[in-house]
């Protein structure tokens, strides 16, 4: 059977993908969102792992938070790529954790610098990362709203 050039790659036997159907999360603007999530996931996880492994005692809280934030980004990236209804829920939780995390840690790092002698991903609302960590959960929520499974 000739392949239909217009059809998206599909998951198993679910057939063609509608704009809001399975797989929609990783197409269109979601493609770029996944790319940004992957970049943050990689950089924060690698940086956090390195800091926890080699410099843990210098700023334990900041480094553990970096690693945690990185893992949350990795979970969000994977969920957006999987793009199943279940993955949509996982992505929603991950994005909400990010939002709460960046707001909480951002506020704490400004009020109390003693516990954070070194930078962390969510520190000062993500300043080290060009404030992308503050912007990203908002874009993520908007995108998840558009791709909510029926």
């Amino acid at each position: 059977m000739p392949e239909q050039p217009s059809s998206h790659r599909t998951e198993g036997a679910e057939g063609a993908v509608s704009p809001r159907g399975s797989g929609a999360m990783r197409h269109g603007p979601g493609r770029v969102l996944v790319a940004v999530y992957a970049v943050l996931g990689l950089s924060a996880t690698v940086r956090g792992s390195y800091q926890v492994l080699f410099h843990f005692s210098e700023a334990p809280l900041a480094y553990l938070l970096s690693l945690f934030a990185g893992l949350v980004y990795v979970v969000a990236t994977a969920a957006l790529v999987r793009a199943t209804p279940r993955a949509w829920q996982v992505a929603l939780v991950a994005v909400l954790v990010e939002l709460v995390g960046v707001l909480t840690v951002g506020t704490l790092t400004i009020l109390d610098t003693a516990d954070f002698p070194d930078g962390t991903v969510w520190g000062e609302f993500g300043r080290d990362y060009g404030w992308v960590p503050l912007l990203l959960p908002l874009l993520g929520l908007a995108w998840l709203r558009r791709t909510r499974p029926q």
Partner: protein
Amino acid sequence: MTPVLAWACGVLAVVVAALAGIATVRGHRLDDRLLIAVAVLEAAMLLQAVIGFVALAVTDRSVDGVVFGSYLVTTVLVPVVGAFWALGEKSRWGTGVLLVAALTSAILVVRLEQVWSTGA
């Protein structure tokens, strides 16, 4: 490490980012011209990685090898992974992915140069 090569990589990354950004705004899909630009960037990054690892091996200065090495590996991976992720999207957002990858490459090159010159 030669600052000249790092500069060249950085400028190339910014050029690819600009081309990809223009394509995204105009709604153009990923085309051969853009892929060739990414390939040129990747070639420069590979050259930089080889020179970088050699420089790390022979230097007398104290440079954090783990950090520097991770940056070198990442600079080589980002354009390739970005191009593959972009190829799966037949719309303007494919070039949008390339924009993200190229900007990330530019930032990585700046950080790489910082790690090399300051040691951390």
